């Protein structure tokens, strides 16, 4: 078959044969994320997964959570209006001295044309969450159904090891809540009340933050991730946290 992608061989190819560095690292990431989608059975985020792993039928794509909540950030669309941050603070009682999500600015001085980019960051609801492993009292835990990393506030002793453990600077201690506060994809404030999207996703005028169920082929996040025309990547992949927030451009 012509369009069959042989990931195993692709990985072994030289750089020159793959024009797009980011795609390459995405593919690599795909393989890494794969075994890792904690349930261990999702093997690729590439659409033609069945063909790729035709030889290994037992390694069918299967997400460990249902719904498997995820967010795709269309990075190049962000204009730094920060409406998402306002919506988040309003919806989730975020302290004025803290934040659950943030917009970072990156400047590439020697780029031709546009030099500034804005990068939205938030909790990645990691599949292999370092914060969850480190917490002594299970005050932060991974929800077994939807994979969201939640807080059981009353159990939090405030040791802040999770703040150190998180590679994404996604946690802060909230004095009023007497516990760590972090993004939970608006689970308590919206999802559990029947809303389909997070506050930030809804507030964004530029459609940067696409939210949905990564395991549902009809959802937009599924379509954005399971394709190979545009690069998709994750942040700080090297930490092995297996994030569920993906980034894309174009």
């Amino acid at each position, binding site marked *: 078959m012509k369009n069959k992608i042989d990931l195993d061989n692709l990985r072994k190819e030289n750089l020159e044969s793959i024009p797009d560095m980011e795609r390459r690292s995405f593919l690599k990431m795909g393989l890494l994320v794969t075994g890792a989608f904690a349930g261990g059975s999702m093997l690729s985020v590439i659409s033609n997964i069945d063909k790729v792993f035709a030889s290994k039928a037992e390694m069918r794509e299967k997400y460990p959570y249902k719904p498997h909540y995820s967010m795709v950030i269309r990075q190049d669309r962000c204009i730094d209006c920060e409406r998402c941050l306002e919506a988040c603070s309003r919806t989730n009682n975020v302290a004025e001295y*803290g934040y659950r999500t943030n917009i970072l600015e990156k400047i590439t001085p020697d780029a031709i044309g546009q030099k500034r980019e804005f990068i939205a960051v938030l909790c990645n609801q990691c599949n292999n969450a*370092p914060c969850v492993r480190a917490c002594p009292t299970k005050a932060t835990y991974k929800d077994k159904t939807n994979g969201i990393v939640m807080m059981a506030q009353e159990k939090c002793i405030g040791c802040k090891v999770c703040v150190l453990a*998180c590679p994404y600077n996604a946690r802060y201690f909230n004095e009023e809540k*007497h516990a760590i506060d972090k993004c939970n994809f608006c689970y308590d404030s919206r999802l559990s009340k029947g809303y389909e999207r997070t506050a930030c996703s809804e507030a964004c005028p530029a459609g940067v933050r696409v939210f949905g169920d990564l395991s549902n082929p009809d959802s937009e996040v599924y379509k954005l991730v399971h394709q190979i025309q545009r690069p998709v990547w994750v942040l700080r992949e090297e930490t092995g*946290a297996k994030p569920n927030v993906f980034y894309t451009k174009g």
Partner: protein
Amino acid sequence: MANGYKPLKVSTVVSGVAKSLDASFFAEWASVLRDLLSGSKSFYLMILLGAAIVYFAAMGGLDAMRIGYRHAYAVTREVPWGILISTYIFFVVTSTGLCIVSSIGHVFGVKNFMPIASRAVFLSIVTIMAGFTVIFFEIENPFRMAIYNLISPNLTSNIWWMGTLYGAYMVFMIIEFVMLLLKQHRLATYAGLLGLVSGIVAHSNLGAIFAMLHGREYWYGPYLPVYFIASAIMSGCATIILFTWIAYKASNREMEGPMKKSMEAIGKLCTMMIAILMFFTSWKLITGSVAGGGKVEAIRAMMAGPYAMNFWVFEVGMGMVIPFGLLLMSKWKDMRMMAVATFMMMIAIFIMRYDLVLIGQIVPSWHELGVSEYPQLLSYTPSLHEFAVVLGGMGMVAISFMLGEKVFKGHKSEDH
């Protein structure tokens, strides 16, 4: 003693303890009380000074609780662990080290290490308590810890293991000390062994808290748990040498022969541990200088950046090179020179812990992303409230040490 591992029976324990609680025991304690009341002026002055420090520290700590740690302490979202964590580590490293050094005599029966055992065990209890006190003022909800550590344990968490094992450790050490007082040497040995095991495992877990944070390159890897144990032994040796010297000086006593021998043996062990630590540190630098981006940044901050003075002057100079030289020169007989060396080491070790905790955090999480928000290394300077709590911990140790010398009569119970 160490060869007396006969199976223990509850009845023998009870009758043994009861036997020690006879009239002479109480008479002894009455005399202790008399001693305490008849201390010299300078003794009371020192105690008063220590009490004042602890008092002001307690006020500082309580004030911090009142206004909220976010306002009182200099820690931030990006640098959530500061001098209180490093001071806690300093105390528990010292405690674990003292336990290890005391166990060489007390558990393993090496004769030269016996004279210091009682004082070392006592100090190890005092320092772990000081550590717990400091951490009490660091953790946001310490009371919840007692509950949820128990009913919602996370067995993959190093903090859980460390907290639980250090709790057990403290109990074992107290039992050991009481048994030493009651002259129940066999029981003391058992308790000492349990204390030693839990202390070492707890301590390596303390190292693992840092070593298992895979987003933090400076700490990540198997180095720290091993390093922590080695540096604990070094700290334990330095502490017991210094405090024994002070105890004898303060009470105007001449060191007895066995104690001199003991100091010599511990001094040698101390020197050897410094040498080992020198290797550890050198290889940490050498491997770190060719590591990935974040780690190289951290190592650079340590060697030539904001932490260079801490590193070269304190860690290397006062912590290793100078005391190493002094100890060699003292031939482990010149007590004053050994005291100077170990005093320097104590200061340096405190800074070592500080650097270890801070340098691991100064490279921002988003460093490699190259965003404008985090153009440089993060910084942290302890606040007054934090200093107050640190001083309080030290004051606690000082007072307890002085009272301990009086109450336990210079820890002479080991002269058997």
